[in-house]
């Protein structure tokens, strides 16, 4: 059976060009870039080149701003904990209620350690409450850590505006953004519109590089202490022998993403829009989460009321379609999506949410196939649902009441 992969916000396939660029460094060029002999120099040179290219794609001329890490989670931990460590006199952090756990849980852990953390809320479309953000900025504020694009809904936060407001209030507040979902999709110019951002995290495996490589942009002079301490690598700012092949892979993947960015994003957006429109037409009682906010071109988070997400994913998977859900049963923690809950999406819809996230490798046929099978999957599950009136094809009048009874 052909696999239709529509879960690219979880991870992506490795581009063949990326794989090929990595092979020499997985085979004959295995040297430690810190060593002195000639072959090792070529490995060190390749890293320097890769660093320069990656910096360039972010509008940065001085490659020293870019550190390589093992993943975006490490980058986020390094950014937040490193900033806290370097600025012991301030103990207030501003973040949002819809961050990825790699930020949210770090902030909560600092909260347990006595830090004050403000979680800025979002509205029903997932837009950030800018007024609440402005009010939260204070003289005690150590840092702001706010994601660029949401992994579940694709909603994009106005990082340019938020970082500007932060720096205009107090230049010593450190501004961090988790740009894991946006790098390679949205053009980010860290010397232009994003010049107020001090720290920016991302990883390779969301843009067709392998898992196990991440990066952290640290603007010169940002007070952020190293997270990994040891050798002199990365000038002592992130110790540990460089992951040469993966660094090369990341640079290649970024080059691929940025070279045809506009064309590629248009292709992806067209596919997503067609999928969205067709599902909205063919299925009753659905809503697209984040529809009223600026969104990534590749993400469709759709809620089918009164159906459970896992059941949908299971049937999709029987058709070879890979997607994910914000339902409690799929999360591993038995908690429904904190992102959709923060958007005040009712439980009936949170549990019935499915996320399709596309990439450059998706085709019109993929979309046709999803449109063909998904409405029937929903219909099948609704037939089983105690909340659904199958004759009228609408929720039973007492559905809300029943739900409340079951909690």
């Amino acid at each position, binding site marked *: 059976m052909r696999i239709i992969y529509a879960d690219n916000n979880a991870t992506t396939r490795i581009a063949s060009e990326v794989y090929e660029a990595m092979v020499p460094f997985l085979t004959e060029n295995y040297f430690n870039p810190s*060593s002195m002999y000639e072959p090792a120099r070529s490995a060190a040179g390749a890293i320097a080149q890769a660093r320069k290219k990656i910096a360039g794609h972010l509008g940065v001329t001085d490659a020293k701003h870019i550190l390589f890490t093992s993943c975006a989670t490490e980058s986020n931990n390094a950014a937040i904990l490193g900033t806290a460590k*370097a600025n012991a006199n301030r103990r207030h952090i501003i973040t949002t209620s819809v961050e990825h756990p790699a930020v949210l849980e770090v902030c909560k852990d600092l909260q347990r350690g006595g830090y004050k953390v403000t979680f800025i809320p979002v509205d029903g479309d997932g837009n950030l409450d800018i007024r609440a953000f402005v*009010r939260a900025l204070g003289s005690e504020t150590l840092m702001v850590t706010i994601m660029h694009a949401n992994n579940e809904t694709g909603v994009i936060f106005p990082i340019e505006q938020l970082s500007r407001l932060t720096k205009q209030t107090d230049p010593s507040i450190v501004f961090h953004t988790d740009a894991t979902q946006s790098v390679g999709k949205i053009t980010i110019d860290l010397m232009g519109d994003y010049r107020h951002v001090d720290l920016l995290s991302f990883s390779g495996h969301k843009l067709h590089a392998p898992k196990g490589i991440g990066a952290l942009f640290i603007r*010169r002079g940002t007070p952020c202490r190293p997270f990994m301490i040891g050798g002199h690598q990365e000038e*002592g700012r992130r110790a540990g022998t460089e992951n040469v092949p993966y660094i090369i892979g990341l640079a290649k993947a970024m080059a691929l993403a940025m070279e045809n960015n506009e064309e590629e994003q248009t292709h992806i957006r067209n596919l997503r829009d067609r999928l969205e429109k067709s599902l909205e037409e063919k299925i009753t009682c659905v809503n697209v989460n984040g529809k009223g906010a600026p969104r990534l071109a590749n993400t469709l988070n759709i809620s089918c009321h009164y159906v459970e997400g896992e059941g949908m994913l299971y049937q999709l998977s029987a058709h070879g379609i890979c997607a994910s859900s914000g339902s409690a049963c799929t999360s591993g923690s038995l908690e429904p999506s904190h992102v959709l809950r923060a958007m005040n999406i009712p439980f009936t819809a949170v549990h019935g949410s499915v996320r399709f996230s596309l990439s450059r490798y998706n085709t019109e046929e993929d979309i046709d196939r999803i449109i063909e099978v998904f409405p029937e999957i929903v219909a099948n599950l609704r037939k089983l649902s105690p909340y659904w009136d199958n004759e009228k094809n609408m929720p039973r009048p007492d559905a809300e009441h029943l739900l409340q009874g079951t909690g």
Partner: protein
Amino acid sequence: MAWEYSERTRQLFMDAVHGKPGTHLGEIEDPDGIGEHGSMACGDAMRFTFRVKRHPSDPTKDVIVESRYLTFGCTSAIAASEALCTLIEQGGYTPIEALKIRNGDIVKFLEGLPEQKIHCSVMGAEALESAVFNWAQKRGVDLERLGVDIHADEQEEGRIVCECFSLSEPYLRRKIKELNLRTIPQITNAIKAGGGCMSCHHVPGGLQDLLDEIWSGETKQVAPEPGKAAKGAAKEEPLSPYQFAKKVEKTMDEYIRPMLQRDGGDVEIVDIKEALVYCRLKGACAGCAGAAVTLKMMVETTLKNVVDERIRVIQV
């Protein structure tokens, strides 16, 4: 990190190691000047010797005719030693003239050195200085009276904290105390440390750590900005935050909003923090390309004039 040496550096190193004719490895027996310099930071040390053609009557007119070095060190240290000897012999200098050779000349001769290796060129210049000093003693030349400051570049040895400028921990500690430096920008401005790649700012044992350690005994006291505190005290009783906010709002309602409303726009105060007033333009103003200018010119100027000159308007 593997070092990126120039072709010239690598060639000089290879020539010296293989004892090619014309290279200067060795030690002159019974030299006219001998100088040593070692840097713990790089694990290298140099012994530099030279012979002069003695002037029959005036020792200051002695001319260096031969120079040799023994260097324990890395590629660039040996290449820098070669460079030093070549420069001296080519120049036909007197010892005092030779002092004009700075580490920059050595770097230039080597067609560049990696930032982290600049201190290797400094070592050559330092060894030369001490050899000239030795020659002066032997020949009874009073350098001080000739106006030659032999210790101009004196610097304590120790762990290098700022690699870009090759500044050691003991040196930084002394300067931080001497000059009463309290912040990283102050250090950078005063002695350049941390002004290059900036990676020494917040690493373990970096500039911030030195500052914290040196000043930890004292309570953190940021010097007040000149004039700021004095000014506030001299004026009449300042407004409470509540009174301040009220006055800003009143000014908005009386002067600013009517003007904006005439053009179909409006302004909302999102927040007030001390002298920062956060505003959001609404209606016709919100989409206006000149919104930022409107806020700055009209709203801010009005608030400054009516309420407080410190006010800064921030567009939300």
